[in-house]
């Protein structure tokens, strides 16, 4: 039920977004792999945020650090989906 009602619809939606970005069929193997890579990145930063924080600077962790992480990651992740991003050099827009 978790898989069919929550996880699969989200994977499918992200897969269609990746397919639209890459201009390919959602069933394409490369699209499926790209979707999993996208989900994997997000899940990594959920599950391993303690590792990320420790690696950066846990004693002085501020909003600017999160903006830095987002501004650094978003262009590469977007580019992997064939989507240019204007986030390079951005100061962050977290609210």
């Amino acid at each position: 039920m978790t898989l069919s009602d929550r996880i699969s619809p989200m994977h499918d939606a992200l897969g269609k977004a990746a397919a639209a970005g890459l201009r390919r069929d959602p069933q394409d193997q490369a699209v499926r792999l790209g979707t999993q890579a996208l989900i994997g990145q997000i899940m990594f930063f959920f599950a391993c945020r303690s590792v990320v924080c420790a690696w950066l600077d846990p004693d002085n962790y501020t909003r600017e650090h999160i903006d830095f992480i987002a501004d650094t990651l978003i262009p590469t992740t977007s580019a992997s989906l064939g989507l240019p991003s204007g986030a390079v050099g951005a100061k962050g827009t977290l609210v």
Partner: protein
Amino acid sequence: MASEGLIVLQCPDTAVEMRPTATVNRDFVWPSGEVSQSRIFLSVGKPLASSGCSGFAMRELAHAAKVILGALICHSGGIRKLYYETIFWFIDDIGPVFTPIIRQLSEVVGRATIDREALEDYVENFLRGSLADGFSASRLSPALARVFP
């Protein structure tokens, strides 16, 4: 059902009323209401998710949820039923989070051939929001807690 300041327990299956005795720690009374039920599911969710039904005794789960063991057994009907109820509760709980994301993704994907910029913007916002959500749950640093109280 409340009576004379005590929380009266209504067992769903047996319709047997239970009430905490005077010797019971006041922190360990069965809390009635949806908010308290949510608290119980939140409390037992992590141990059940990490170790499954067989990894914990009901006593430990009752302690984690700060409820009377007997009340937890009476209400839940056993650890397996509690496990399934907890899973269903989390499925319902994440529904309001996932549903709008899926709907918005579908909308921008539908327009992607004529409005690619909208897809770019949505993916960027989705990633930024996901990162912010992930780090806002962090309890690593007081500084971070001040950022995301």
